[in-house]
């Protein structure tokens, strides 16, 4: 057999990878290649399948079908340790670092050189040093990790991967919590590593960084390959159009008519604890649905939680129908008619072991009790049954624990809790996550009905189709700031994505 000298040999190649999770097709016949000493950026919207693909490579998930070759040998990666031994290192977005240990102990965690069971501390330190040098980390190996900045901790994670002789390093959103100068440093480290022949898969929403460091861009969309850009083709616009791709058929938006500008909700200069330097202001008229788009981590949920009063009040003010309302607790917001249907229904929206009726009444028990604080079960049940009927909640009875209901019906129970009261602003945080198509449509219809009754609605969603189809206006957030508010005629995925990755609305 002849060796084909001219054909580049890939360090890694994935072919036709399929992966299905219960109810979701996460990856459909995805191909991915990377050669020695190459930096490949993997881009895509939330839920496009980037993490699933990388988790398959890192041994976290197994593919349903498909072929993975490392150095032209077919492999199956059944576990994280197997990925390690194949030379695949994974630096996760959430750092897997033990901050009670020092740097060298983290680098050699689980692989400590030992003698008679005693860890040879000085040997570890000696072995760690060269990796720190390579990464330009000017610290002693016995520095406690807790004393390092996030950027330095990230580099320690990379050192750990290098110490396992990783040939391919996957970096998942490595810069999401780094400062600007730390980011620059990391990009330098990446190009150094590339020069040493290490391949890097770089996942990021920050398209600026991608164009700065990537040799090639691979885009995924809806679990499929969306396209590849060579080094000289990498531009902001081309990446955005690859990520967004298809034209959407618009869900027809029947509305606008009932919007009353004189009434509604307004917030001025509120501050969230995640982005304390950014002030957020916006307005939602009575009868209007304001969609809020942005990438994961843009600070949208934090804005919702701050308005609702479960996150601390760090400043700014909130108005309902022009009157400033009292803030500082969820109770105060609820009393002013501000309600939140939170993102994580099971954790914050519902007490899943409680029955439907108890969940519906939880926020308004005072209404269902007498002067002595004794609950009137009759009135509680009547209200619950009204909501079950109105929202078409499919449940055997009002006494069924909500844990036994489907996701869509659970979401309706959360709504039932608030609709049994008197909403002025209803915040939906990812209202249709994990909900089937039928229930989705019902929830959209309900939102519009509520708006028509004069409720102001804030809908936070990472689902583009949903944001474009349902909203009257769309506010886009990026790193704790509203980068733009789009009117109906400006609704395009490109516009939204452009703002979501930090572009300004003028360009």
């Amino acid at each position, binding site marked *: 057999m002849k060796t084909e000298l001219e054909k580049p040999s890939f360090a890694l190649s994935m072919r036709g990878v399929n992966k299905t999770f219960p109810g979701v097709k996460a990856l459909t016949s995805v191909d991915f290649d990377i050669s020695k000493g190459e930096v490949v950026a993997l881009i895509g919207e939330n839920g496009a399948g980037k993490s699933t693909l990388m988790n398959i490579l890192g041994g976290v998930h197994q593919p349903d079908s498909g072929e993975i070759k490392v150095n032209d040998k077919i492999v199956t990666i059944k576990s994280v340790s197997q990925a390690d031994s194949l030379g695949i290192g994974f630096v996760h977005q959430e750092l897997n670092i033990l901050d009670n240990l020092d740097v060298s102990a983290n680098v050699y965690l689980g692989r400590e050189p030992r003698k008679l069971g005693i860890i040879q501390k000085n040997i570890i330190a000696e072995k760690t040093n060269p990796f720190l040098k390579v990464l330009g980390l000017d610290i002693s190996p016995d520095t406690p990790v807790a004393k390092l900045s996030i950027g330095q901790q990230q580099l320690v994670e990379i050192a750990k991967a290098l110490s396992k002789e990783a040939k391919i390093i996957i970096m998942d959103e490595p810069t999401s919590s780094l400062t600007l100068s730390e980011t620059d440093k990391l990009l330098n480290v990446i190009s150094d590593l590339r020069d040493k022949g290490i391949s890097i898969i770089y996942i990021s929403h920050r398209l600026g960084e991608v164009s700065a460091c990537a040799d090639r861009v691979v885009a995924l969309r809806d679990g499929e390959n969306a396209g590849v850009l060579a080094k000289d083709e990498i531009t902001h616009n081309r990446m955005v159009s690859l990520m967004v791709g298809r034209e959407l058929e618009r869900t027809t938006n029947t509305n606008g008519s009932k919007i009353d500008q004189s009434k509604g909700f307004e917030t001025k200069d509120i501050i969230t604890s995640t982005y304390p330097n950014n002030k957020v202001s916006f307005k939602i008229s009575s009868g209007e649905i304001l969609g809020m788009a942005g990438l994961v981590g843009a600070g949208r949920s934090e804005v919702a939680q701050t308005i609702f009063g479960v996150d601390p009040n760090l400043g700014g003010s909130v108005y309902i129908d022009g009157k400033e309302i009292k803030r500082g607790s969820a109770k105060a917001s*609820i009393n002013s008619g501000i309600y939140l249907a939170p993102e994580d229904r099971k954790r914050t929206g519902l007490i899943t072991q409680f029955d439907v009726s108890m969940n519906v009444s*939880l926020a308004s028990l005072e209404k269902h009790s007498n002067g002595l*604080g004794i*609950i009137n079960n009759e009135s509680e049940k009547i209200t619950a049954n009204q909501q079950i009927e109105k929202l078409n909640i499919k449940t055997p009875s009002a006494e069924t624990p909500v844990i036994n209901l489907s996701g869509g019906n659970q979401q309706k129970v959360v709504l039932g809790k608030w609709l049994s009261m008197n909403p002025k602003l209803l915040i939906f945080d990812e209202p249709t996550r994990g909900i089937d198509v039928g229930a989705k449509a019902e929830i959209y219809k309900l939102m519009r009905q509520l708006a028509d009754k004069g409720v102001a609605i804030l809908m936070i969603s990472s689902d583009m189709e949903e944001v474009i189809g349902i909203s009257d206006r769309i506010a886009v957030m990026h790193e704790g700031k509203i980068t733009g508010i789009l009117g109906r005629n400006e609704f395009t995925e490109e516009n939204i994505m452009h703002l979501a990755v930090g572009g300004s609305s003028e360009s």
Partner: protein
Amino acid sequence: MNNSKLGFINNNRRELGMLGLLIALIVITSWGTRESGVQALFESKFLSADNLKNISREIGIYGIFSIGVGIVIITAGIDLSVGSLMALLGVVFLYFVTPPETRPDSFLAKIIPEIPWLAAVLFTLLIGTAIGVFQGLLVGKLKLQAFIVTLCGLLSYRGLARFSADDTSINISDSSQNLEFLRFLGEGSLSDVLSNGNGSGFLHSIPMSFIYLLCFAIFFGVLLHKSVFGRYIFAAGRNELATKYSGINTNIVIAFAYVIAGFCTAFAAIPFCIYTGSVQPATHGAFFELYAIAAAVLGGCSLRGGEGSIIGILIGTAILIVLRNMVNLFGYPTPLSDAITGGVIFVGVLLDQHGASSIKRIFSKKPVSGN
């Protein structure tokens, strides 16, 4: 009462199972302690009027503080300070009713004035409740771990009790007040209280502490199972975050559970120290916190929070007391009593969680591996 109990049995397998265990224990003990010959169960030592009176007195005292601890457990917390608090409050209460010159030479003994017994009762309740407020704020408001906060309580209240009593026993007999009526209230029977010590008949076999327990059970039963506040307790215990997201100040709700526990402990401490007649601070009330936890858990409270009932706690308490009484009446060595109690709780909880099959599995493992 009967009606709500029936509804209970329908809804709560746990309580039903434990009630079965209690009845089984009663039948076994009655059978084992019956007079010689084939006589009716009802003529056993266990079912004698005196024994029943003693048991119900103990159930009364233990039941009251177990209700407090049970409510804390329903909020997904724990209260380990109960036994030590009983010792401290016992010392304080006896200091209140004894003249300063009879007390040992210690700092608390010097600062606590002698006051009439009714005032002493009220102040003791107040101090217990205040300690509950303190622990409640630490756990509910400052979000310190309940286990740690009340463990510190367990150590420091006992230490304080021993220090302030100079580690000697404090006797109620040192009091120069006329405490006859207090004694009736504390260790006497319903008829003692009604007829000033001349009671007899059925009412005479109902100890006051049992009456108190019934009042506590009804009051806290309504509070926990019928009121808005009770709903908040269960909600906060199940899912504190979701409860907060419904606009409920869970910090206060959780803190209040510890206040209830402090009050219940203080209330139980008084009849208990009158009954014992003296407080030996090193041992008074030792392990009571664990009996309370055992009673609550036996009665269906989950240490994960959000589960449990007052009736369950009462049944759990009764099981503990009947078990101890059984060990006594059967003439087993007293030191064995805790071991037997522990074993029964273990089997009871195991049966409840996994059913009979798991026990079978545990015991069938050996023969299988032997083959």
